[in-house]
């Protein structure tokens, strides 16, 4: 692993933009960086990352409050129903709008009817700082649900956005460790909400607590923790 560069707000980031002696024309700044005055500054505390060709820089940091970003999967709770759609709490500053027809196979006559308090798994389709976010429960290109939609029986809990991001990757050690021992369903929202379902409530509680405990554990510690929990189970 290469050395980790930790930045805190106000640190100037040195972006060497030369590749093969050629100066890069375009530099892309990701989250946590901002162009202030003549320099590029970190605005969040985290680990600085860059693409191998030095044309992209971003800071990986951990937060608890979600800011909607286009294309990200989220777990939300319906808080109200309006004529044009549902208002869904996704943990961001403003509630998201879920249009009535943004479901697989929904038509004007035949569309899902969600009660207030229903949990949905959806993808952010519109997100910018000037508008309320919009979400949809299907892929608008294919018209297929692709796993999105209402989340039925099960349990939902909150975690940090950093943990949610790690769980979302297929290599998440805690999910692999759990998955090798027992069957469970999981839906990870990048807004720091995780939905799980198993056959028995005791297993659900075990899986939920194992995931919550994994916040500060590495792969080896995760396996150990899961084994300890299973022994007690």
């Amino acid at each position, binding site marked *: 692993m290469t050395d980790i560069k930790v930045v805190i707000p106000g640190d100037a980031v040195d972006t060497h933009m030369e590749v093969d002696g050629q100066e890069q024309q375009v530099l892309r700044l990701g989250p946590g960086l901002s162009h202030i005055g003549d320099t590029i500054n970190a605005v969040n505390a985290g680990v600085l990352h860059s693409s191998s060709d030095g044309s992209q820089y971003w800071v990986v940091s951990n937060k608890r409050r979600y800011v909607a970003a286009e294309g990200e999967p989220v777990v939300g*709770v319906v808080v109200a129903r309006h004529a044009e759609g549902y208002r869904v709490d996704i943990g961001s500053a403003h509630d998201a709008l879920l249009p009535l027809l943004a479901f697989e196979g929904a038509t004007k006559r035949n569309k899902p009817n969600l009660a207030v308090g229903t949990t949905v798994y959806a993808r952010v389709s519109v997100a910018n700082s000037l508008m309320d976010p919009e979400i949809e429960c299907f892929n608008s290109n294919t018209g297929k649900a692709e796993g999105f939609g209402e989340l039925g029986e099960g349990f939902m809990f909150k975690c940090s956005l950093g943990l949610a991001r790690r769980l979302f990757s297929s290599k998440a050690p805690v999910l692999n460790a759990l998955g090798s021992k027992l069957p469970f369903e999981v839906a990870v929202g990048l807004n720091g909400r995780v939905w799980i379902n198993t056959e028995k*409530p005791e297993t659900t509680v075990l899986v939920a607590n194992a995931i919550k405990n994994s916040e500060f554990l590495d792969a080896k510690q995760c396996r150990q923790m899961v084994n300890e929990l299973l022994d007690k189970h």
Partner: protein
Amino acid sequence: MVAEIPPSNIEAAFVLDALQKNIRVDGRGIYDYRALRISCGPAPGMVEVQLGQTRVLARVSCEVTRPAPERPTEGIVLFSCELGSMAAPGLESGGGGGPRASAQEVAVSRMIERIIRQSRAIDTEALCIMAGIKVWTMRIDLHFLDHSGNLVDAAAVATIAALRHFRRPDVTVDGETAIIHDPRDRNPVPLSIHHTPVCVSFAFLGAAGDLVVLDPSLLEEQTQAAAFTITLNAHREICALNKAGGVPLDASQIGRCMQVAVAKSDELIDAINAALGLNKS
């Protein structure tokens, strides 16, 4: 800012489903208390209590004032309870009983006031310096820092521990004049506390309130059908009972809760004594 949204339907349903099998969402048994941590000091009368993730800070302070005319020989005890946006998003504090105080803030503050004042935990006559002229006014400030369920139990422990931890300046009365000694000249003295009341809270869940848990978490409080708090002291005397509204409960359940509460109150009082540096009595 919008108030906190209630738990989603699946969360509420799961809490009940699991409880049918005696399973709690955080993995505890139904009569398990969360870990309790009491930190005293550095200032006298400053105690921070952590019950699981719930945090409460209590500060006790005093000043010399005139007594109330109808009670010339008694000191005054004031309470101020602060359950604001520090503790949970969307909460707004009335700032010590103001008109904007939330129902929850009022409920907790009344409960604490009742167990300390009405159970006569503080010897108010010992706070008298010169009858009708000078008495000590005690002030108890409770600050809720993190709300994750069962504020009352945590606040009760913090309050009584802070009162017992507090030291007021020593006073000498010489005829018509009272001398208040600087803490650096003469050691401050502890308050005269009659007993140590602590609260033990239960939540009843389910439509009929037939599922009982001790020390409810936030999610359990949000889904409860009724709440019940028993206040006991070290002599196993009941100081207060509180069941404000909710579904009617079976009387036999109250008896069972009482037995659990007696055992738990002993543990809480031992924890307070240990934090104050006293040995088990």
